[in-house]
Protein backbone atom coordinates (compact mmCIF):
# COMPACT_ATOMS: atom_id res chain seq x y z
CA UNK A 1 0.00 0.00 0.00
CA UNK A 2 1.84 3.06 -1.18
CA UNK A 3 0.94 6.69 -1.37
CA UNK A 4 0.09 6.81 -5.06
CA UNK A 5 -2.79 4.34 -5.11
CA UNK A 6 -6.31 5.45 -4.27
CA UNK A 7 -8.52 3.15 -2.25
CA UNK A 8 -11.69 3.80 -4.25
CA UNK A 9 -12.31 4.02 -8.00
CA UNK A 10 -13.04 7.62 -9.13
CA UNK A 11 -16.29 6.47 -10.75
CA UNK A 12 -17.66 5.23 -7.43
CA UNK A 13 -16.49 8.44 -5.74
CA UNK A 14 -18.27 10.64 -8.26
CA UNK A 15 -21.45 8.53 -8.10
CA UNK A 16 -21.56 8.89 -4.30
CA UNK A 17 -20.79 12.59 -4.47
CA UNK A 18 -23.53 13.31 -7.02
CA UNK A 19 -26.12 11.01 -5.42
CA UNK A 20 -25.71 12.54 -1.97
CA UNK A 21 -25.45 16.02 -3.48
CA UNK A 22 -28.80 15.64 -5.24
CA UNK A 23 -30.35 14.22 -2.06
CA UNK A 24 -29.19 17.15 0.11
CA UNK A 25 -30.30 19.79 -2.38
CA UNK A 26 -33.65 18.00 -2.85
CA UNK A 27 -34.21 17.92 0.89
CA UNK A 28 -33.17 21.56 1.09
CA UNK A 29 -35.86 22.46 -1.46
CA UNK A 30 -38.44 20.38 0.42
CA UNK A 31 -37.69 21.92 3.81
CA UNK A 32 -37.09 25.32 2.25
CA UNK A 33 -40.86 25.75 1.75
CA UNK A 34 -41.04 26.46 5.47
CA UNK A 35 -38.32 29.10 5.48
CA UNK A 36 -40.09 32.02 3.81
CA UNK A 37 -39.81 34.41 6.78
CA UNK A 38 -36.58 35.80 8.23
CA UNK A 39 -37.05 33.88 11.49
CA UNK A 40 -37.68 30.73 9.48
CA UNK A 41 -34.66 31.20 7.25
CA UNK A 42 -32.20 32.25 9.95
CA UNK A 43 -33.50 30.33 12.96
CA UNK A 44 -35.83 27.61 11.67
CA UNK A 45 -38.82 29.24 13.35
CA UNK A 46 -37.23 29.12 16.84
CA UNK A 47 -39.14 25.92 17.60
CA UNK A 48 -36.82 22.99 16.77
CA UNK A 49 -37.55 19.81 18.78
CA UNK A 50 -35.18 17.71 20.85
CA UNK A 51 -34.39 15.08 18.18
CA UNK A 52 -33.37 17.54 15.48
CA UNK A 53 -31.87 19.91 18.04
CA UNK A 54 -29.44 17.45 19.59
CA UNK A 55 -28.62 15.85 16.23
CA UNK A 56 -27.74 19.18 14.65
CA UNK A 57 -25.46 20.19 17.54
CA UNK A 58 -23.76 16.81 17.48
CA UNK A 59 -23.33 16.62 13.69
CA UNK A 60 -22.01 20.14 13.40
CA UNK A 61 -19.40 19.27 16.01
CA UNK A 62 -18.36 16.18 14.04
CA UNK A 63 -16.23 17.82 11.39
CA UNK A 64 -13.91 16.34 8.82
CA UNK A 65 -11.26 16.97 11.50
CA UNK A 66 -12.97 14.57 13.87
CA UNK A 67 -12.76 11.80 11.31
CA UNK A 68 -9.32 12.68 9.92
CA UNK A 69 -7.41 14.19 12.85
CA UNK A 70 -8.58 11.88 15.64
CA UNK A 71 -6.70 8.85 14.28
CA UNK A 72 -3.63 11.09 13.98
CA UNK A 73 -4.02 12.09 17.63
CA UNK A 74 -4.22 8.40 18.54
CA UNK A 75 -1.15 7.52 16.51
CA UNK A 76 0.88 10.44 17.82
CA UNK A 77 -0.26 10.85 21.41
CA UNK A 78 -1.86 7.53 22.23
CA UNK A 79 -4.62 6.99 24.76
CA UNK A 80 -4.32 10.48 26.24
CA UNK A 81 -4.47 11.97 22.76
CA UNK A 82 -7.85 10.33 22.17
CA UNK A 83 -9.09 11.29 25.63
CA UNK A 84 -7.93 14.87 24.98
CA UNK A 85 -10.10 14.93 21.87
CA UNK A 86 -13.16 13.70 23.78
CA UNK A 87 -12.96 16.83 25.96
CA UNK A 88 -14.31 18.78 22.98
CA UNK A 89 -17.71 17.38 24.01
CA UNK A 90 -17.41 19.22 27.36
CA UNK A 91 -18.00 22.44 25.42
CA UNK A 92 -21.46 21.16 24.50
CA UNK A 93 -22.21 20.05 28.09
CA UNK A 94 -21.27 23.42 29.54
CA UNK A 95 -23.05 25.34 26.80
CA UNK A 96 -26.31 23.56 27.70
CA UNK A 97 -27.18 25.70 30.76
CA UNK A 98 -25.79 28.76 28.99
CA UNK A 99 -28.14 28.18 26.04
CA UNK A 100 -31.15 28.21 28.37
CA UNK A 101 -29.89 31.43 29.94
CA UNK A 102 -29.39 32.97 26.48
CA UNK A 103 -32.97 32.16 25.52
CA UNK A 104 -34.26 33.75 28.72
CA UNK A 105 -32.20 36.89 28.39
CA UNK A 106 -32.64 37.36 24.63
CA UNK A 107 -35.99 35.94 23.53
CA UNK A 108 -35.71 37.66 20.14
CA UNK A 109 -31.92 37.58 19.73
CA UNK A 110 -30.28 36.52 16.48
CA UNK A 111 -26.52 36.21 16.92
CA UNK A 112 -23.67 35.99 19.42
CA UNK A 113 -22.62 39.41 18.11
CA UNK A 114 -25.96 40.81 19.31
CA UNK A 115 -25.13 39.64 22.81
CA UNK A 116 -21.64 41.15 22.96
CA UNK A 117 -22.85 44.46 21.49
CA UNK A 118 -25.73 44.83 23.95
CA UNK A 119 -23.82 43.44 26.92
CA UNK A 120 -20.48 45.22 26.53
CA UNK A 121 -20.71 47.90 23.84
CA UNK A 122 -19.19 48.64 20.47
CA UNK A 123 -15.46 48.28 21.17
CA UNK A 124 -15.80 44.79 22.63
CA UNK A 125 -18.22 43.99 19.81
CA UNK A 126 -15.67 44.94 17.12
CA UNK A 127 -12.92 42.86 18.73
CA UNK A 128 -15.33 39.96 19.13
CA UNK A 129 -16.52 40.15 15.51
CA UNK A 130 -12.90 40.21 14.35
CA UNK A 131 -12.10 37.06 16.32
CA UNK A 132 -15.30 35.32 15.33
CA UNK A 133 -15.05 36.05 11.62
CA UNK A 134 -11.38 35.05 11.50
CA UNK A 135 -12.14 31.78 13.26
CA UNK A 136 -15.21 31.04 11.12
CA UNK A 137 -13.36 31.65 7.88
CA UNK A 138 -10.40 29.56 9.06
CA UNK A 139 -12.79 26.73 9.94
CA UNK A 140 -14.72 27.00 6.67
CA UNK A 141 -11.61 27.17 4.48
CA UNK A 142 -9.79 24.39 6.35
CA UNK A 143 -12.81 22.11 5.95
CA UNK A 144 -13.38 22.80 2.26
CA UNK A 145 -9.68 22.28 1.63
CA UNK A 146 -9.50 19.12 3.75
CA UNK A 147 -12.58 17.89 1.89
CA UNK A 148 -10.95 18.35 -1.50
CA UNK A 149 -7.74 16.68 -0.32
CA UNK A 150 -9.55 13.69 1.22
CA UNK A 151 -11.75 13.10 -1.82
CA UNK A 152 -8.67 13.15 -4.03
CA UNK A 153 -6.74 10.79 -1.77
CA UNK A 154 -9.68 8.40 -1.28
CA UNK A 155 -11.13 8.26 -4.78
CA UNK A 156 -8.74 10.11 -7.06
CA UNK A 157 -11.27 12.90 -7.64
CA UNK A 158 -9.35 15.99 -8.76
CA UNK A 159 -8.87 18.33 -5.79
CA UNK A 160 -10.44 21.33 -7.50
CA UNK A 161 -13.52 19.42 -8.65
CA UNK A 162 -14.06 17.68 -5.30
CA UNK A 163 -13.65 20.87 -3.28
CA UNK A 164 -15.90 22.83 -5.66
CA UNK A 165 -18.56 20.11 -5.58
CA UNK A 166 -18.67 20.01 -1.76
CA UNK A 167 -18.99 23.79 -1.52
CA UNK A 168 -21.55 23.98 -4.33
CA UNK A 169 -23.83 21.38 -2.74
CA UNK A 170 -23.64 22.99 0.70
CA UNK A 171 -24.22 26.52 -0.63
CA UNK A 172 -27.17 25.34 -2.73
CA UNK A 173 -29.12 23.61 0.00
CA UNK A 174 -28.35 26.23 2.64
CA UNK A 175 -29.51 28.84 0.15
CA UNK A 176 -32.82 27.23 -0.73
CA UNK A 177 -33.62 25.83 2.70
CA UNK A 178 -32.04 28.12 5.30
CA UNK A 179 -31.59 26.75 8.80
CA UNK A 180 -34.49 24.32 8.26
CA UNK A 181 -32.48 22.56 5.58
CA UNK A 182 -29.28 22.77 7.62
CA UNK A 183 -30.89 21.17 10.68
CA UNK A 184 -32.91 18.59 8.75
CA UNK A 185 -29.93 17.35 6.75
CA UNK A 186 -27.83 17.42 9.94
CA UNK A 187 -30.14 14.82 11.46
CA UNK A 188 -29.76 12.39 8.54
CA UNK A 189 -26.04 13.11 8.40
CA UNK A 190 -25.56 12.39 12.10
CA UNK A 191 -27.32 9.02 11.83
CA UNK A 192 -25.12 8.09 8.84
CA UNK A 193 -21.96 9.28 10.63
CA UNK A 194 -22.70 7.27 13.79
CA UNK A 195 -23.57 4.09 11.88
CA UNK A 196 -20.45 4.45 9.72
CA UNK A 197 -18.24 4.87 12.76
CA UNK A 198 -19.72 1.78 14.41
CA UNK A 199 -19.23 -0.25 11.22
CA UNK A 200 -15.52 0.57 10.98
CA UNK A 201 -15.01 0.04 14.73
CA UNK A 202 -16.69 -3.39 14.66
CA UNK A 203 -14.61 -4.38 11.62
CA UNK A 204 -11.47 -3.39 13.51
CA UNK A 205 -12.52 -5.41 16.55
CA UNK A 206 -13.24 -8.47 14.43
CA UNK A 207 -9.71 -8.29 13.02
CA UNK A 208 -7.88 -8.33 16.35
CA UNK A 209 -7.96 -9.48 19.93
CA UNK A 210 -7.77 -6.26 21.91
CA UNK A 211 -5.82 -7.88 24.76
CA UNK A 212 -3.13 -9.29 22.46
CA UNK A 213 -3.03 -6.08 20.45
CA UNK A 214 -2.41 -4.15 23.65
CA UNK A 215 0.50 -6.44 24.59
CA UNK A 216 2.09 -6.00 21.15
CA UNK A 217 1.65 -2.24 21.01
CA UNK A 218 2.97 -1.73 24.53
CA UNK A 219 6.17 -3.42 23.34
CA UNK A 220 6.57 -1.54 20.06
CA UNK A 221 4.99 1.85 20.86
CA UNK A 222 5.13 2.12 24.66
CA UNK A 223 4.71 5.89 24.84
CA UNK A 224 1.22 5.62 23.34
CA UNK A 225 0.09 3.94 26.54
CA UNK A 226 2.12 6.15 28.85
CA UNK A 227 -0.27 7.58 31.42
CA UNK A 228 2.11 10.50 31.95
CA UNK A 229 2.97 11.42 28.36
CA UNK A 230 3.87 15.14 28.60
CA UNK A 231 2.66 16.34 25.16
CA UNK A 232 -0.62 14.50 25.52
CA UNK A 233 -1.22 15.78 29.05
CA UNK A 234 -0.72 19.35 27.88
CA UNK A 235 -2.99 18.86 24.90
CA UNK A 236 -5.74 17.68 27.27
CA UNK A 237 -6.56 21.09 28.73
CA UNK A 238 -5.48 22.88 25.58
CA UNK A 239 -8.02 20.98 23.50
CA UNK A 240 -10.67 21.42 26.14
CA UNK A 241 -10.29 25.20 26.24
CA UNK A 242 -10.03 25.42 22.47
CA UNK A 243 -13.36 23.59 22.36
CA UNK A 244 -14.89 25.88 24.99
CA UNK A 245 -13.74 28.91 23.03
CA UNK A 246 -15.16 27.56 19.78
CA UNK A 247 -18.55 26.63 21.21
CA UNK A 248 -19.07 29.55 23.60
CA UNK A 249 -18.30 32.33 21.15
CA UNK A 250 -19.30 31.08 17.74
CA UNK A 251 -22.59 31.95 16.18
CA UNK A 252 -22.96 28.38 14.91
CA UNK A 253 -23.87 27.42 18.48
CA UNK A 254 -25.70 30.60 19.40
CA UNK A 255 -27.94 30.29 16.34
CA UNK A 256 -28.87 26.81 17.58
CA UNK A 257 -29.52 28.15 21.06
CA UNK A 258 -31.99 30.59 19.45
CA UNK A 259 -33.44 27.98 17.09
CA UNK A 260 -34.15 25.09 19.46
CA UNK A 261 -37.43 25.21 21.42
CA UNK A 262 -36.85 27.02 24.71
CA UNK A 263 -38.14 24.16 26.83
CA UNK A 264 -35.71 21.58 25.42
CA UNK A 265 -32.69 23.70 24.47
CA UNK A 266 -30.61 22.79 27.50
CA UNK A 267 -31.44 19.11 27.23
CA UNK A 268 -30.65 19.10 23.49
CA UNK A 269 -27.13 20.42 24.03
CA UNK A 270 -26.43 18.00 26.90
CA UNK A 271 -27.61 15.11 24.77
CA UNK A 272 -25.48 16.32 21.86
CA UNK A 273 -22.48 16.26 24.20
CA UNK A 274 -23.30 12.70 25.24
CA UNK A 275 -23.66 11.63 21.60
CA UNK A 276 -20.32 13.23 20.75
CA UNK A 277 -18.37 12.02 23.80
CA UNK A 278 -17.52 8.47 22.64
CA UNK A 279 -16.79 9.37 19.01
CA UNK A 280 -13.05 10.12 19.27
CA UNK A 281 -12.36 6.82 21.00
CA UNK A 282 -14.55 4.85 18.61
CA UNK A 283 -12.96 6.52 15.57
CA UNK A 284 -9.38 6.55 16.76
CA UNK A 285 -8.69 3.43 18.78
CA UNK A 286 -7.49 1.36 15.80
CA UNK A 287 -4.69 3.89 15.34
CA UNK A 288 -3.28 2.76 18.71
CA UNK A 289 -2.97 -0.74 17.33
CA UNK A 290 -1.89 -0.11 13.73
CA UNK A 291 1.25 -2.13 14.45
CA UNK A 292 -0.72 -5.10 15.76
CA UNK A 293 -3.06 -4.87 12.79
CA UNK A 294 -0.02 -4.97 10.50
CA UNK A 295 -0.91 -1.63 8.95
CA UNK A 296 2.03 0.55 7.97
CA UNK A 297 1.10 4.23 8.14
CA UNK A 298 3.05 5.74 5.27
CA UNK A 299 1.54 9.22 5.60
CA UNK A 300 0.32 10.59 8.94
CA UNK A 301 -2.34 12.73 7.21
CA UNK A 302 -3.92 9.59 5.79
CA UNK A 303 -3.98 7.53 9.00
CA UNK A 304 -7.78 7.18 9.10
CA UNK A 305 -8.32 6.27 5.44
CA UNK A 306 -5.34 3.87 5.42
CA UNK A 307 -6.71 1.98 8.43
CA UNK A 308 -10.32 1.91 7.21
CA UNK A 309 -9.22 0.84 3.72
CA UNK A 310 -7.04 -1.91 5.13
CA UNK A 311 -9.73 -3.16 7.53
CA UNK A 312 -12.75 -3.09 5.25
CA UNK A 313 -11.27 -2.93 1.75
CA UNK A 314 -13.32 -0.96 -0.76
CA UNK A 315 -16.44 -1.27 1.44
CA UNK A 316 -14.51 0.52 4.15
CA UNK A 317 -13.51 3.21 1.72
CA UNK A 318 -17.13 3.71 0.65
CA UNK A 319 -18.25 3.94 4.30
CA UNK A 320 -15.48 6.38 5.11
CA UNK A 321 -16.17 8.45 2.00
CA UNK A 322 -19.83 8.80 2.95
CA UNK A 323 -19.04 9.54 6.61
CA UNK A 324 -16.53 12.23 5.65
CA UNK A 325 -18.89 13.76 3.10
CA UNK A 326 -21.65 13.86 5.76
CA UNK A 327 -19.40 15.39 8.40
CA UNK A 328 -18.17 17.99 5.93
CA UNK A 329 -21.72 18.80 4.85
CA UNK A 330 -23.11 19.04 8.38
CA UNK A 331 -20.43 21.51 9.44
CA UNK A 332 -20.01 23.58 6.28
CA UNK A 333 -23.75 24.20 5.95
CA UNK A 334 -23.98 25.32 9.59
CA UNK A 335 -21.01 27.63 9.24
CA UNK A 336 -22.37 29.16 6.04
CA UNK A 337 -25.74 29.81 7.67
CA UNK A 338 -24.42 31.08 11.02
CA UNK A 339 -21.67 33.26 9.55
CA UNK A 340 -24.02 34.81 7.01
CA UNK A 341 -26.41 35.57 9.90
CA UNK A 342 -23.56 37.28 11.72
CA UNK A 343 -22.66 39.34 8.67
CA UNK A 344 -26.27 40.18 7.82
CA UNK A 345 -27.42 41.01 11.35
CA UNK A 346 -24.28 42.43 12.96
CA UNK A 347 -22.49 44.04 10.06
CA UNK A 348 -25.20 44.95 7.54
CA UNK A 349 -28.18 45.71 9.78
CA UNK A 350 -26.38 47.14 12.80
CA UNK A 351 -23.53 48.95 11.06
CA UNK A 352 -24.67 49.81 7.54
CA UNK A 353 -28.45 49.96 7.21
CA UNK A 354 -30.43 49.83 10.49
CA UNK A 355 -33.79 50.52 8.79
CA UNK A 356 -33.62 47.38 6.62
CA UNK A 357 -36.85 45.34 6.61
CA UNK A 358 -36.95 41.64 7.54
CA UNK A 359 -37.77 40.74 3.96
CA UNK A 360 -34.80 42.66 2.59
CA UNK A 361 -32.53 41.20 5.25
CA UNK A 362 -33.54 37.69 4.22
CA UNK A 363 -32.53 38.52 0.64
CA UNK A 364 -29.26 40.03 1.84
CA UNK A 365 -28.65 36.84 3.82
CA UNK A 366 -28.90 34.69 0.72
CA UNK A 367 -26.52 36.99 -1.13
CA UNK A 368 -24.05 36.73 1.74
CA UNK A 369 -24.23 32.91 1.68
CA UNK A 370 -23.36 32.93 -2.03
CA UNK A 371 -20.59 35.46 -1.37
CA UNK A 372 -19.17 33.44 1.50
CA UNK A 373 -19.18 30.30 -0.63
CA UNK A 374 -17.45 32.17 -3.44
CA UNK A 375 -14.76 33.67 -1.19
CA UNK A 376 -14.10 30.28 0.42
CA UNK A 377 -13.87 28.71 -3.02
CA UNK A 378 -11.39 31.33 -4.23
CA UNK A 379 -9.18 30.89 -1.15
CA UNK A 380 -9.25 27.11 -1.55
CA UNK A 381 -8.57 27.08 -5.28
CA UNK A 382 -4.78 27.33 -5.06
CA UNK A 383 -4.24 24.25 -2.96
CA UNK A 384 -1.88 25.68 -0.36
CA UNK A 385 -1.90 22.49 1.68
CA UNK A 386 -3.62 21.42 4.80
CA UNK A 387 -4.94 24.46 6.61
CA UNK A 388 -5.26 22.62 9.90
CA UNK A 389 -2.44 24.73 11.28
CA UNK A 390 -4.41 27.89 10.55
CA UNK A 391 -7.32 26.49 12.54
CA UNK A 392 -5.07 25.67 15.50
CA UNK A 393 -3.68 29.17 15.10
CA UNK A 394 -7.18 30.45 15.90
CA UNK A 395 -7.05 28.58 19.24
CA UNK A 396 -5.68 31.43 21.40
CA UNK A 397 -8.18 33.89 19.88
CA UNK A 398 -11.26 31.84 20.68
CA UNK A 399 -9.83 30.71 24.03
CA UNK A 400 -9.57 34.33 25.10
CA UNK A 401 -13.29 34.85 24.38
CA UNK A 402 -14.42 32.16 26.87
CA UNK A 403 -14.50 34.35 29.98
CA UNK A 404 -16.12 37.48 28.51
CA UNK A 405 -18.99 35.29 27.26
CA UNK A 406 -19.45 33.26 30.47
CA UNK A 407 -19.17 36.09 32.98
CA UNK A 408 -21.22 38.30 30.66
CA UNK A 409 -24.09 35.85 30.92
CA UNK A 410 -24.08 35.50 34.72
CA UNK A 411 -22.33 38.42 36.40
CA UNK A 412 -23.60 42.00 36.49
CA UNK A 413 -20.13 43.29 37.34
CA UNK A 414 -18.54 41.94 34.15
CA UNK A 415 -17.67 44.97 32.03
CA UNK A 416 -16.43 46.20 28.67
CA UNK A 417 -12.88 47.11 29.75
CA UNK A 418 -12.39 43.61 31.12
CA UNK A 419 -13.88 41.98 28.05
CA UNK A 420 -11.72 43.93 25.62
CA UNK A 421 -8.52 43.57 27.65
CA UNK A 422 -9.02 39.85 28.23
CA UNK A 423 -9.67 39.17 24.55
CA UNK A 424 -6.74 41.28 23.33
CA UNK A 425 -4.17 40.26 25.96
CA UNK A 426 -5.33 36.63 26.04
CA UNK A 427 -4.94 36.37 22.26
CA UNK A 428 -1.56 38.09 22.26
CA UNK A 429 -0.01 36.03 25.05
CA UNK A 430 -1.61 32.86 23.67
CA UNK A 431 -0.06 33.56 20.29
CA UNK A 432 3.32 34.07 21.92
CA UNK A 433 2.94 30.66 23.60
CA UNK A 434 1.95 29.16 20.24
CA UNK A 435 5.29 30.13 18.74
CA UNK A 436 7.41 29.80 21.87
CA UNK A 437 6.14 26.52 23.38
CA UNK A 438 3.99 24.89 20.69
CA UNK A 439 0.35 24.73 19.63
CA UNK A 440 -0.57 22.44 22.52
CA UNK A 441 -0.15 25.30 25.01
CA UNK A 442 -1.69 28.24 23.09
CA UNK A 443 -5.42 27.98 23.93
CA UNK A 444 -4.64 26.88 27.48
CA UNK A 445 -2.49 29.92 28.20
CA UNK A 446 -4.87 32.30 26.38
CA UNK A 447 -7.81 31.10 28.48
CA UNK A 448 -5.89 31.34 31.75
CA UNK A 449 -4.67 34.88 30.96
CA UNK A 450 -8.19 35.88 29.95
CA UNK A 451 -9.53 34.51 33.24
CA UNK A 452 -7.05 36.46 35.36
CA UNK A 453 -7.81 39.73 33.54
CA UNK A 454 -11.59 39.23 33.59
CA UNK A 455 -11.57 38.51 37.34
CA UNK A 456 -9.23 41.41 38.05
CA UNK A 457 -11.43 43.93 36.24
CA UNK A 458 -14.57 42.48 37.81
CA UNK A 459 -13.08 42.93 41.27
CA UNK A 460 -12.38 46.59 40.52
CA UNK A 461 -15.62 47.16 38.63
CA UNK A 462 -18.43 49.52 39.60
CA UNK A 463 -20.64 48.28 36.73
CA UNK A 464 -24.00 46.71 37.63
CA UNK A 465 -25.47 45.59 34.34
CA UNK A 466 -29.22 45.79 33.75
CA UNK A 467 -30.18 42.43 32.19
CA UNK A 468 -33.28 43.83 30.48
CA UNK A 469 -31.00 45.71 28.06
CA UNK A 470 -30.38 42.38 26.35
CA UNK A 471 -34.02 42.02 25.37
CA UNK A 472 -34.02 44.28 22.32
CA UNK A 473 -37.70 43.79 21.61
CA UNK A 474 -38.71 45.37 24.94
CA UNK A 475 -36.65 48.41 24.12
Amino acid at each position, binding site marked *: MNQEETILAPGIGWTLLIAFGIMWVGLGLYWGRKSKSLDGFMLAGRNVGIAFGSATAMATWVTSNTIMVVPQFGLKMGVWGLLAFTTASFGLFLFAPMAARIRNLMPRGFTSGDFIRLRYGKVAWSVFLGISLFYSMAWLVSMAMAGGIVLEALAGINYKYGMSMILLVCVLYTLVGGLYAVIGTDFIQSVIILIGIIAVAVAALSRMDLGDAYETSVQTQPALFNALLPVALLSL*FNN*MFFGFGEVFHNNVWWSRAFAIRKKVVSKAFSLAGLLWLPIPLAVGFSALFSNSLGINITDIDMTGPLIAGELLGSTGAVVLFVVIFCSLGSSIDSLLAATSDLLAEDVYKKMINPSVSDEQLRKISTLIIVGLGLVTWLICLPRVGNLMSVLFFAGPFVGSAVWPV*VTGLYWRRSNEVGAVLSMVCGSAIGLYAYFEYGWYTASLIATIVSMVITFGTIALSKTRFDWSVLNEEKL
Partner: protein
Amino acid sequence: MHHALIRLRTQSRTVAAILIVITLQLLTVDVGAAGFQEPDGESYQTDDGTVPLVWGEIGVGPEPDRVYEVRRWSEGETESSLLVYEGEDTASFVSGLNEGKHIFRIRSKDRDGVYPEWGDESLEVTVDYIDMAIVWPLMGAGAVCFIVLILTIVLGRRAVERKEIA
Protein backbone atom coordinates in the same frame (compact mmCIF):
# COMPACT_ATOMS: atom_id res chain seq x y z
CA MET B 1 58.65 -17.11 -22.74
CA HIS B 2 59.67 -15.04 -19.79
CA HIS B 3 57.90 -12.07 -21.31
CA ALA B 4 54.85 -14.12 -21.96
CA LEU B 5 54.83 -15.26 -18.31
CA ILE B 6 55.17 -11.71 -17.06
CA ARG B 7 52.41 -10.58 -19.36
CA LEU B 8 50.18 -13.38 -18.20
CA ARG B 9 50.90 -12.51 -14.60
CA THR B 10 50.14 -8.81 -15.11
CA GLN B 11 47.05 -9.72 -17.09
CA SER B 12 45.80 -12.01 -14.38
CA ARG B 13 46.59 -9.34 -11.81
CA THR B 14 44.56 -6.83 -13.80
CA VAL B 15 41.72 -9.29 -14.16
CA ALA B 16 41.87 -10.01 -10.43
CA ALA B 17 41.94 -6.31 -9.66
CA ILE B 18 38.96 -5.69 -11.91
CA LEU B 19 37.14 -8.65 -10.37
CA ILE B 20 37.83 -7.34 -6.87
CA VAL B 21 36.65 -3.87 -7.83
CA ILE B 22 33.47 -5.29 -9.36
CA THR B 23 32.70 -7.47 -6.34
CA LEU B 24 33.44 -4.57 -4.03
CA GLN B 25 31.11 -2.40 -6.07
CA LEU B 26 28.44 -5.06 -6.01
CA LEU B 27 28.90 -5.44 -2.28
CA THR B 28 28.71 -1.71 -1.63
CA VAL B 29 25.62 -1.44 -3.81
CA ASP B 30 24.00 -4.17 -1.79
CA VAL B 31 25.25 -3.21 1.64
CA GLY B 32 25.00 0.54 1.65
CA ALA B 33 22.39 1.24 -0.99
CA ALA B 34 19.24 1.50 1.11
CA GLY B 35 19.14 4.60 3.25
CA PHE B 36 16.88 7.12 4.92
CA GLN B 37 15.90 10.09 2.78
CA GLU B 38 13.86 11.73 5.53
CA PRO B 39 14.58 12.99 8.08
CA ASP B 40 17.68 14.61 6.63
CA GLY B 41 21.08 13.96 8.18
CA GLU B 42 22.28 11.39 10.67
CA SER B 43 20.42 12.57 13.71
CA TYR B 44 16.92 13.83 14.49
CA GLN B 45 15.46 15.46 17.56
CA THR B 46 11.78 15.23 18.56
CA ASP B 47 9.69 16.36 21.52
CA ASP B 48 6.66 14.19 20.81
CA GLY B 49 8.17 10.73 20.30
CA THR B 50 7.38 10.50 16.61
CA VAL B 51 9.52 10.40 13.49
CA PRO B 52 8.30 10.28 9.88
CA LEU B 53 10.69 7.98 8.02
CA VAL B 54 11.10 7.93 4.25
CA TRP B 55 13.67 5.69 2.62
CA GLY B 56 14.86 4.32 -0.69
CA GLU B 57 17.88 3.20 -2.66
CA ILE B 58 20.41 6.00 -2.40
CA GLY B 59 21.84 7.23 -5.68
CA VAL B 60 19.48 5.25 -7.91
CA GLY B 61 15.87 5.84 -8.83
CA PRO B 62 12.99 3.94 -7.26
CA GLU B 63 13.69 0.22 -7.59
CA PRO B 64 10.75 -2.09 -8.13
CA ASP B 65 10.43 -5.30 -6.12
CA ARG B 66 12.79 -4.15 -3.42
CA VAL B 67 12.02 -5.38 0.08
CA TYR B 68 13.15 -3.22 2.97
CA GLU B 69 13.78 -4.05 6.58
CA VAL B 70 13.87 -1.24 9.13
CA ARG B 71 14.88 -1.98 12.70
CA ARG B 72 15.33 0.08 15.81
CA TRP B 73 17.79 -0.30 18.69
CA SER B 74 16.72 1.63 21.75
CA GLU B 75 18.75 2.78 24.70
CA GLY B 76 17.66 1.29 27.98
CA GLU B 77 15.21 -1.10 26.36
CA THR B 78 15.89 -4.62 25.11
CA GLU B 79 19.40 -5.57 23.97
CA SER B 80 18.11 -6.87 20.65
CA SER B 81 16.47 -4.74 18.01
CA LEU B 82 12.77 -4.28 17.25
CA LEU B 83 11.32 -4.64 13.78
CA VAL B 84 9.86 -1.31 12.65
CA TYR B 85 8.79 -2.34 9.17
CA GLU B 86 9.41 -5.01 6.60
CA GLY B 87 7.98 -4.85 3.11
CA GLU B 88 7.89 -2.85 -0.09
CA ASP B 89 6.65 0.51 1.26
CA THR B 90 9.16 3.33 1.26
CA ALA B 91 7.84 5.26 4.24
CA SER B 92 6.58 4.71 7.76
CA PHE B 93 5.34 7.05 10.45
CA VAL B 94 6.97 5.87 13.67
CA SER B 95 5.33 6.90 16.93
CA GLY B 96 5.17 6.04 20.61
CA LEU B 97 8.92 6.19 21.26
CA ASN B 98 10.07 6.48 24.83
CA GLU B 99 12.35 9.25 25.98
CA GLY B 100 16.00 8.59 25.08
CA LYS B 101 18.14 7.65 22.09
CA HIS B 102 16.96 5.33 19.34
CA ILE B 103 19.08 4.06 16.47
CA PHE B 104 17.30 3.21 13.21
CA ARG B 105 18.95 1.07 10.54
CA ILE B 106 17.75 -0.07 7.16
CA ARG B 107 18.71 -2.72 4.64
CA SER B 108 17.13 -4.02 1.47
CA LYS B 109 17.10 -7.03 -0.79
CA ASP B 110 15.44 -8.32 -3.93
CA ARG B 111 12.16 -10.06 -3.30
CA ASP B 112 13.80 -13.53 -3.46
CA GLY B 113 17.21 -12.38 -2.32
CA VAL B 114 18.99 -12.44 1.00
CA TYR B 115 19.57 -9.44 3.24
CA PRO B 116 23.14 -8.16 3.41
CA GLU B 117 24.77 -7.54 6.77
CA TRP B 118 23.75 -4.28 8.50
CA GLY B 119 25.77 -1.33 7.22
CA ASP B 120 27.35 1.35 9.33
CA GLU B 121 24.89 4.02 8.32
CA SER B 122 22.20 4.76 10.83
CA LEU B 123 19.78 7.41 11.96
CA GLU B 124 19.94 8.49 15.56
CA VAL B 125 16.63 9.75 16.91
CA THR B 126 16.66 11.56 20.23
CA VAL B 127 13.33 11.85 21.99
CA ASP B 128 13.26 14.63 24.53
CA TYR B 129 9.79 15.23 25.93
CA ILE B 130 8.82 18.52 27.52
CA ASP B 131 9.99 18.72 31.09
CA MET B 132 7.30 17.66 33.56
CA ALA B 133 8.36 20.71 35.61
CA ILE B 134 6.65 22.79 32.91
CA VAL B 135 3.79 20.38 32.37
CA TRP B 136 2.55 20.14 35.97
CA PRO B 137 2.17 23.89 36.65
CA LEU B 138 0.37 24.37 33.33
CA MET B 139 -1.88 21.39 34.06
CA GLY B 140 -2.57 22.79 37.52
CA ALA B 141 -3.47 26.21 36.13
CA GLY B 142 -5.65 24.55 33.51
CA ALA B 143 -7.44 22.51 36.18
CA VAL B 144 -8.08 25.63 38.28
CA CYS B 145 -9.41 27.50 35.24
CA PHE B 146 -11.66 24.53 34.41
CA ILE B 147 -13.07 24.23 37.93
CA VAL B 148 -13.66 27.98 38.22
CA LEU B 149 -15.45 27.91 34.86
CA ILE B 150 -17.78 25.12 35.98
CA LEU B 151 -18.44 26.88 39.28
CA THR B 152 -19.20 30.16 37.49
CA ILE B 153 -21.78 28.49 35.30
CA VAL B 154 -23.32 26.25 37.98
CA LEU B 155 -23.47 28.93 40.68
CA GLY B 156 -24.58 31.56 38.17
CA ARG B 157 -27.41 29.32 37.07
CA ARG B 158 -28.43 28.62 40.65
CA ALA B 159 -28.43 32.33 41.49
CA VAL B 160 -30.63 33.05 38.47
CA GLU B 161 -33.07 30.29 39.46
CA ARG B 162 -33.25 31.57 43.02
CA LYS B 163 -34.04 35.06 41.79
CA GLU B 164 -36.73 33.75 39.45
CA ILE B 165 -38.42 31.92 42.35
CA ALA B 166 -38.18 35.02 44.53
